[in-house]
């Protein structure tokens, strides 16, 4: 745990250093740029609140990917599951008229249902036709993309709008905002606690983890791996769907074109950087959100374009993933060399 934290911090530091060199080569001032980047993402109540709010879809889709990868299924359908979750929550918000304390949980549930249904399609395709979820989830992303686009262009189209979008949902379904802070963070933290508990303390989570590490051993031990496969697909689909629901309920309060942005792929990337660890996903999710949030301010007061953050993200991923193994090797080799020298007669 400690080694992971240290290697993560060193990795981020090296990535920022490489980013600084790239900026220097292009004639920008890295100190000023990083100053602006973190000023607009971490220092101050409003920047911090924005970073937290923006981290929610990244972390939830990241958790979805982490739990799936660590349990075996290669669920890469978070983008589609997010969109379906968002659509389900939107439609619920358009047609249900309930008091706030009831409507919010109902919409959250609907968004999870939408995501789970979509990942469930992939699970059934595997169960019935032995199709690899690696392929089917990717293909279902495209179907979800076009299906939701159709849905907001025709049946749920807001006739007063000039581009594809739905009307706003019932205001009772809007997530409360306290000062600068949006309560979508509370929902995310609750979801994190639940999934952490399930994954690490419950019998089911134990079986998922062992199956992810060695499915033949799990099967011989009496674990019903096919049943667990379906459960994991549904749970991770629900997590991605929840991310979509929260995007609608916290932000524009409607489903508009391009709603999914790049959240889910960033989430998958965060899971990879965190090596499928749940706490790692949470921390890296916050860091990536800080970079993305600060990029707007950075563009405002420096000449560095916002796209630079994508470069920085890519460098961070590469440095951390490559450095993870390398740091261990370096430390181990140093210990070995010292030990050999001690033993020389």
């Amino acid at each position, binding site marked *: 745990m400690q080694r992971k934290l240290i290697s993560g911090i060193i990795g981020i530091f090296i990535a920022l250093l490489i980013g600084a060199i790239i900026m220097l080569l292009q004639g920008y001032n890295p100190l000023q740029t990083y100053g602006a980047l973190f000023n607009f993402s971490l220092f101050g109540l409003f920047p911090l609140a924005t970073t937290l709010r923006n981290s929610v879809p990244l972390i939830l889709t990241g958790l979805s990917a982490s739990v799936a990868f660590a349990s075996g299924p290669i669920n890469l359908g978070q983008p589609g599951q997010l969109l379906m979750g968002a659509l389900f929550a939107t439609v619920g918000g358009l047609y249900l008229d309930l008091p706030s304390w009831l409507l919010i949980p109902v919409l959250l549930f609907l968004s999870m249902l939408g995501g789970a249904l979509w990942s469930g399609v992939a699970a059934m395709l595997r169960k019935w036709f032995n199709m690899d979820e690696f392929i089917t989830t990717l293909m279902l992303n495209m179907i979800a993309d076009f299906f939701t686009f159709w849905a907001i262009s025709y049946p749920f189209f807001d006739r007063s709008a000039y581009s594809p979008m739905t009307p706003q949902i019932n205001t009772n379904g809007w997530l409360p905002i306290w000062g600068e802070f949006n309560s979508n963070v509370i929902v995310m933290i609750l979801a994190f606690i639940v999934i952490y508990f399930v994954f690490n303390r419950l*019998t089911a989570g134990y079986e998922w983890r062992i199956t992810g590490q060695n499915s*033949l*051993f*799990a099967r*011989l031990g*009496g674990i019903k791996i096919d049943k667990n496969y379906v459960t994991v697909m549904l749970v991770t689909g629900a997590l991605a769907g929840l991310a979509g629901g929260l995007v609608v309920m916290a932000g524009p309060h409607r489903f508009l074109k391009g709603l999914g942005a790049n959240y889910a792929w960033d989430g998958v990337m965060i899971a990879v950087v965190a090596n499928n660890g749940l706490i790692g996903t949470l921390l890296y999710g916050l860091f990536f959100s800080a970079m993305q949030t600060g990029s707007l301010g950075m563009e405002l007061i420096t000449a560095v374009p916002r796209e630079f953050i994508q470069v920085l993200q890519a460098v961070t991923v590469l440095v951390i993933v490559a450095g993870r193994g390398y740091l261990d090797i370096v430390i181990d080799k140093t210990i*070995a060399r010292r030990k050999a020298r001690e033993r020389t*007669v």
Partner: protein
Amino acid sequence: MQVLIEMKDIIKVFPPNVVAVDNVTTDFRIGEIHAIVGENGAGKSTLMKVLYGLEQHDQGEILLQGRSVHFQDPGEAIARGIGMVHQEILLIPQYTVWENIVLGAEPVNFIGMIDRDRARQLVQKKVDEFQFNLNIDAKIDDISVAAAQKVEILKLLYRNVSVLILDEPTAVLTPQEIPQLFNELRRLRDHGHTILFISHHLEEVLDLSDRITVMRKGEKIATVQANETSKTELAQMMVGRTVLFTSHREKSTPGKLIFSLENLTVIDAAHHKRLENVNINVHEGEIVGIAGVEGNGQFELVNSIMGLIPTKQGNLKVNDVNLTKADILERRRYISFVSQNRGKMGAAVKASILENVMMTHHRLNPHFTIWKGLMLNDQYARKFTGQIEQQFSVIMDRMDNPFRSLSGGNQQKVILGRELLLDAPFVLLDQPTRGLDVGSIEYVHELILKMREQKRAIFLISADLEELFRIADRILVLHRGKIVADLPTDQTDIEEVGYLMLEGKEQ
């Protein structure tokens, strides 16, 4: 005899802190067969890999004919006349014998094409020179494992290697094939080659070698003349204490029938019969062994019993419960299972020791969970793991450490502990001592005999005939998917069973 290679104060530490070879000094002479013996993990393979350039030593010096050398890779070692044959056969099955031998060092004609005629001639010359009985035009696919091993040796001789390192060459051979290999090795020695021979079969070592170096826990214990030592002395040096080679077991008194397999036939996807009308009965307090060359149906037998492949024809009963169509969890109520491959089937090596111990118990034993099986009872699992640690004398640091941090012997003890404490009436052991050192093997055998006293029905699949003769009460011989013999251990001998394994019928 003239000294060819000297290894001085060699230290090899595997990162971070496993001292594999600890200040070893030894020498190898021209024209000798020199055995390196030791338990698993004693460092014998590592020492040879250092010499061959596969591993780099951290401290020390290697002298070849008095000159210091340090090989960065095996290619450099081969260029200086040192070659190694690994335990696994590494040949291209679709190529012929001579093609495999010349691969990577092909003779070419003036426009750079492979000169096939000359290549064949060169290979044939080597075969004749050392009197290897080998058809150089046969495909590797069609020849036996013993012949493939000869090809590996010829591959090195073709490259004019004068020092041959063999890593447990007899492990893949049947008892009948071993003397032939030994004769060929002796012939090579008489031609002036130096043979370095890694093994832990002491009888073989005494039979074949001129000198023997004994290693234990990375250190060299001694180098002795083979004709001045004995099996007992070698074993004592290897293990560090006296080892009993005969188990003092009483004759078994089998009770009621526990395990019965009737008319099992398994046909694979390619419509080959892998098992044909196999009938096996095991009674309580009885150890029944299966002998057979690997690949004669053992794999399918184990998978059928465990429910990994569906049974289409046949009947499986344990304790009068019909398990033919039962799912794996249901079977596990009645069957304890130790697989032959710890990393693939017996454990999740990156998961903690604790998590590996809980497997199956977490479903069958209600103490392992609370809230009606929903949540794990961490406290109970820890107590249980501590019990296994004590009862099976496992050496472990912390039970939260990954399973792979344990040594091979300790891994097997944990697996045995987990499986035997399931308290199932039937115990299926698939090569339970594979890859273990002498001390651990002795422990496992004692444990199996203790299980027999506790009236369990034990079914043992083993490729090691000595093991079967040491502990089994009855030996069944499996040949091409059929049980060809059912012999009480005290009414047969290794030669008879060995012949049945190869030929499938009485001599």
